[in-house]
């Protein structure tokens, strides 16, 4: 299996060609998939529309998950924001509420875009839809930001992993935060080097995060981790735009994530045999909702 390019290589290419990360990824993908950039934009626009629908749907607060454990929290946070009571601030609350909304739709068997996975599907819509509003970016730029996110995700997938079963939640929510931070910088008008710094800062914060879903379901802690990962990405965007740099380059952070993922015991990688999944409350949930072993 050929390994894809590294972030360093992408940055070098972007610098040489004078392209943003998103535009570079678009160009490379058009070559790779033997199609036009316009066709790729249209396909990404479909994803963007599904993301927007999921936000709207999630904010209604009517959907419950299969187990009944999650649903309705996005609406609560949004109502508090709309009432002007949000202590963390309007932008952050809006970002987090949207991330919750999409993750809740996912848990309730609604339609979402895996980004990079279903479990972490709220992070990118939360961060990018909100930043696009704040910066006044048009859809064209938003689509390019999504390609920038995809480019970073492709590096992570080929150099490490984007699956909780292989790398823990750092590989899902961590990767999503990393991708969202890099794409967010692009929306905010930063350059590819700043985007990589933002991605590195966001991912570093989530290194070591285990995958310990209660009863093995993509519900708890997944939904709220989407909100936290989105908030983390937002902060990384601000830091990078302020000129703050990551001392460890993104490629090396990804390498570290892979190492940590391999060292993580299986009990903390999606098997629901450790961490939160083994708490007394979680075990009760498991008994209550999933009595399907004695069948």
């Amino acid at each position: 299996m050929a390994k894809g390019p590294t972030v360093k290589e992408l940055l070098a290419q972007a610098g040489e060609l004078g392209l943003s990360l998103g535009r570079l990824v678009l160009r490379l993908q058009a070559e790779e998939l033997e199609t036009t950039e316009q066709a790729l934009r249209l396909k990404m626009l479909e994803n963007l529309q599904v993301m927007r629908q999921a936000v709207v749907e999630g904010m209604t607060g009517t959907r419950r998950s299969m187990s009944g454990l999650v649903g309705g929290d996005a609406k609560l946070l949004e109502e508090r924001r709309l009432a002007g009571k949000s202590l963390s601030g309007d932008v952050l609350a809006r970002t987090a509420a949207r991330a919750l909304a999409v993750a809740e739709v996912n848990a309730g068997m609604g339609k979402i875009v895996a980004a990079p996975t279903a479990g972490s599907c709220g992070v990118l819509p939360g961060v990018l839809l909100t930043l696009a509003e704040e910066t006044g970016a048009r859809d064209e730029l938003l689509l390019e930001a999504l390609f920038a996110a995809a480019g970073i995700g492709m590096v992570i997938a080929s150099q490490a992993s984007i699956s909780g079963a292989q790398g823990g939640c750092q590989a899902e929510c961590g990767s999503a935060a990393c991708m969202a931070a890099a794409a967010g910088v692009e929306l905010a008008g930063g350059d590819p080097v700043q985007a990589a710094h933002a991605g590195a800062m966001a991912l570093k914060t989530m290194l070591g995060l285990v995958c310990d879903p209660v009863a093995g379901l993509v519900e708890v802690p997944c939904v709220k981790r989407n909100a936290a990962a989105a908030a983390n990405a937002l902060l990384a965007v601000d830091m990078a735009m302020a000129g703050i740099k990551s001392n460890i380059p993104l490629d090396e952070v990804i390498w570290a994530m892979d190492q940590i993922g391999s060292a993580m015991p299986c009990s903390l990688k999606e098997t629901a045999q450790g961490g939160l999944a083994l708490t007394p409350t979680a075990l009760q949930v498991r008994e209550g909702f999933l009595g399907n072993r004695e069948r």
Partner: protein
Amino acid sequence: MPVSAFDIIGPVMIGPSSSHTAGAVRLGLMARTILNQEPMEAIIHLHGSFAETYRGHGTNLALVAGLLGMGTDDERIPRALDLARERNMQVEFVTADLGDVHPNSAMLELKGREGLSVRVMGSSVGGGRILVTRIDDFPVELGGDYHTLIVVHQDQPGVVAQMTTLLAAAQVNIAQMRLSRQKKGAEALTILETDQPVEGAALDLIGRLRAVSRALAVKPMA
């Protein structure tokens, strides 16, 4: 593994889990495609994590949705069991130990409306991707990423050469080929993954080779 931007931002799917929901839909759909007709009866053996968490992830709904011909983004997936009932498709779930296989695995025993039957075993290997590992008693490796030709034939000299000659004549490039057989001279199953679709005359001629009992072309999954 072909990694494109849309493997990362995508697929559009019904939640909650790419492996336990989206992958399960694709496994069901692939099994239906291999049966090559609408299933009328299905006994679904669930293994490992599929067996333990299928209700919470809607894995049962997802597998049946696939059997009904739905894709991963079909909003009818949550109602798949009702829809199966409406179409008189009988479905039964059993938990099973399928041996030393991926934790997210299932074996689907299908009977079709027009009398064909097949057993398809496969796994959801992450991110919605699947791998079919057994068709009836033949070990296979089928990911659904390529155009695929599945041929059941007698294991005798020259058959494979005849098939590849017909494919070459139709300008179809073979990416991978794998033959598996029960024992020498008995029935064999060959899987050819190709860069171009196998259709029309080429498919027809391969199906009519004397040693061939069945030839089925499968499109790459969306």
